[in-house]
């Protein structure tokens, strides 16, 4: 695999590792069809970390499940768009080919390690399975490699641990095993869905550090899905902010945190309690609640919660019901939903 000489300039980069183009994923429910992901596009560069951030129900996890085609069946379906892994569209290949991609080219880390591991198999056996599935090697060799990879993710006395069952390990150790499993076949992309949300803060720090080290060593790309803006800021190069199934804003981590362009992003950043805040001062909030997936308008979906003075008028208008705003590039690589009532730079200056 060719190494990219410069990690800085996106314009100089050749083909991205992964490109998601206009992805649409819907679920069939009793109440009708629900579009959980509605025309989402982004790219993941080689060796970089992309953050997918948003609140519950914004479609970030469904986006990940669509990429690896693990949507709950038969309700979840990709209705449109492309998922290009080095140019190859994963939505079009056969289930057998997809099987090889999962765990081979793409590794996965889930939120709750206890549910991601099989409780009745020894850890070494579960890891061996990954090797046996993707590599043509003997059981003995697979077991030895399992121990190697356990050592690599920082599990002490790996030989002993390999013979144990998941319940015998602590939460942090289990997540290390899940990471070992995801990295077993040296994937080029790892999708991590809330990898540290279930962990304590000191263990979270250990796991994030481990992922950074392994990325530096193995050069894989990571899609980091989380609602924690702190985790995003510390681990990601690029960020996609999702709201109600759509991309609200995307750009580099600097763009998003230093110059947020969408009022939703700004609202999120303003509402986190910061260390430097005055104690017991009022926190800024975003009015209202995340809309339900059954009641989504075609227009700018954040508008009902927007502080923009013209938002109320817009919600009453025909445009809100029928016209979907696109994305506009406001500086190189920094895109935002193109509607005045949700853009930070279109907010009237308060007198």
């Amino acid at each position, binding site marked *: 695999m060719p190494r990219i000489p410069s990690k800085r300039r996106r314009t100089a980069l050749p083909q991205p590792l992964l490109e998601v183009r206009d992805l649409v994923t819907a679920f069939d429910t009793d109440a009708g069809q629900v579009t959980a992901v509605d025309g989402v596009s982004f790219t993941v560069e080689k060796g970089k970390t992309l953050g997918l951030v948003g609140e519950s129900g914004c479609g970030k996890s469904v986006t990940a499940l669509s990429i690896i085609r693990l949507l709950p069946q038969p309700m979840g379906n990709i209705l449109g768009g492309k998922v290009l892994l080095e140019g190859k569209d994963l939505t079009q290949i056969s289930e057998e080919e997809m099987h090889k991609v999962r765990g081979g080219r793409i590794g996965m880390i889930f939120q709750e390690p206890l549910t991601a591991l099989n409780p009745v198999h020894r850890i070494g056996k579960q890891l061996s399975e990954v090797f046996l599935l993707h590599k043509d090697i003997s059981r003995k060799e697979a077991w030895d490699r399992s121990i190697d990879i356990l050592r690599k993710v920082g599990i002490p006395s790996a030989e002993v641990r390999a013979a144990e069952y998941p319940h015998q390990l602590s939460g942090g150790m289990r997540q290390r095993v899940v990471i070992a499993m995801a990295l077993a076949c040296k994937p080029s992309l790892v999708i991590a869905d809330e990898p540290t949300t279930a962990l304590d803060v000191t263990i979270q*720090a250990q796991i994030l550090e481990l992922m950074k080290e392994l990325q530096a060593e193995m050069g894989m790309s990571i899609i980091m899905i989380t609602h924690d803006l702190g985790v995003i800021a510390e681990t990601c190069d690029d960020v996609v902010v999702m709201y109600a199934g759509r991309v609200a804003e995307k750009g580099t981590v600097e763009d998003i945190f230093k110059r947020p362009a969408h009022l939703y992003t700004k609202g999120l950043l303003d509402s986190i309690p910061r260390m430097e805040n005055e104690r017991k001062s009022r926190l800024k909030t975003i009015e209202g609640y995340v809309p339900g997936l059954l009641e989504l308008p075609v227009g700018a979906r954040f508008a009902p919660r927007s502080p923009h003075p013209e938002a109320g008028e817009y919600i009453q208008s025909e445009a809100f019901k029928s016209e979907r705003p696109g994305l506009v590039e406001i500086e190189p690589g920094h895109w935002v939903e193109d509607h005045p009532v949700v853009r930070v730079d279109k907010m009237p200056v308060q007198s």
Partner: protein
Amino acid sequence: MIAKNDSPTGSNGEKPLLELRNLRKYFPVKGGVFLRAKAQLKAVDDVSLHIQPGETLGLVGESGCGKSTLGKCVCRLHDATEGQVLFRGQDITRLRGKSLKPFRRDIQMIFQDPAESLNSRHSVGNILEEPLLIHGVKSPAERRQRVAKLLDTVGLSKDSADRFPFEFSGGQRQRIGIARAISLNPELVVCDEPVSALDVSVQSQILNLMMDLQKEFRLSYLFIAHDLAVVKHISDRIAIMYLGKIVELGPAEEIFRNPLHAYTKALISAIPLPEPHTKRERIILKGDVPSPIDPPPGCAFARRSWIHCSEEEMNQPGEFREVQPGHWVEIHPATVENYQQYLA
């Protein structure tokens, strides 16, 4: 503002609202054919604390450190194994039945997951009326009126009373949980991770509401959480708990400006900050929290600390001392750098 207290049990100034004296809660671990207790799980191990009227005490620690058990002992949902819980100076540790009832009214609780702590088969009106009924508000008209006022106080519309919990979003449900907790005008509310299940944008709404209610009703909070930024924002004083023991206690600003215990330092440095490319030194702790069943002898944190000490010292317990007015810390060779200076 209220944090002027020269002992962990608050002997000076205004009388504390709540006082814990050497509180212990052990759970027997059963095993074998006859399910005999074969070990003790020391969830809360010799904790002394106090909370002043109108004060928020933040209680921080990792999962399994005993912070929720401590909260439940305060509410008398658990019976303490040893030690005392004093409320307005009266020992309520062993009260039962009728004599406990007024304290049930004055000490309320808010739980982490409002979806699980609200009865899904009752309307919101019923949920909020129940405590009023139990505590002697006989007239239905008065109850309805008070429910309407409660809903208004927590920012929900009046017609919410006829709806059911599942019809509300997570943030709205937590507002219902808060309404229930304040319905009997309590003095102390034990909040167990009240915002950790909520989305970021909703979390700040709930924190604002809790701060408003505190001002309006002069509530005291025991605020249990693992998110340090949230705890720092809302608390007057903070207690850091590790493996059943309080290891550091002090005014909120002091804990963050001048943390002394190695564990507190590690916790603070481990918080991911929402600012990209900030360079700071990060303390990564080794290993996991040890099991509270038969914890290691001596100082519980010594084996995870980055401050080294001898094997012999490890087996010595630390000493909880006041190092500055109101700032208490467990002094041990492995927990505080240059610990000798504090032992004078």
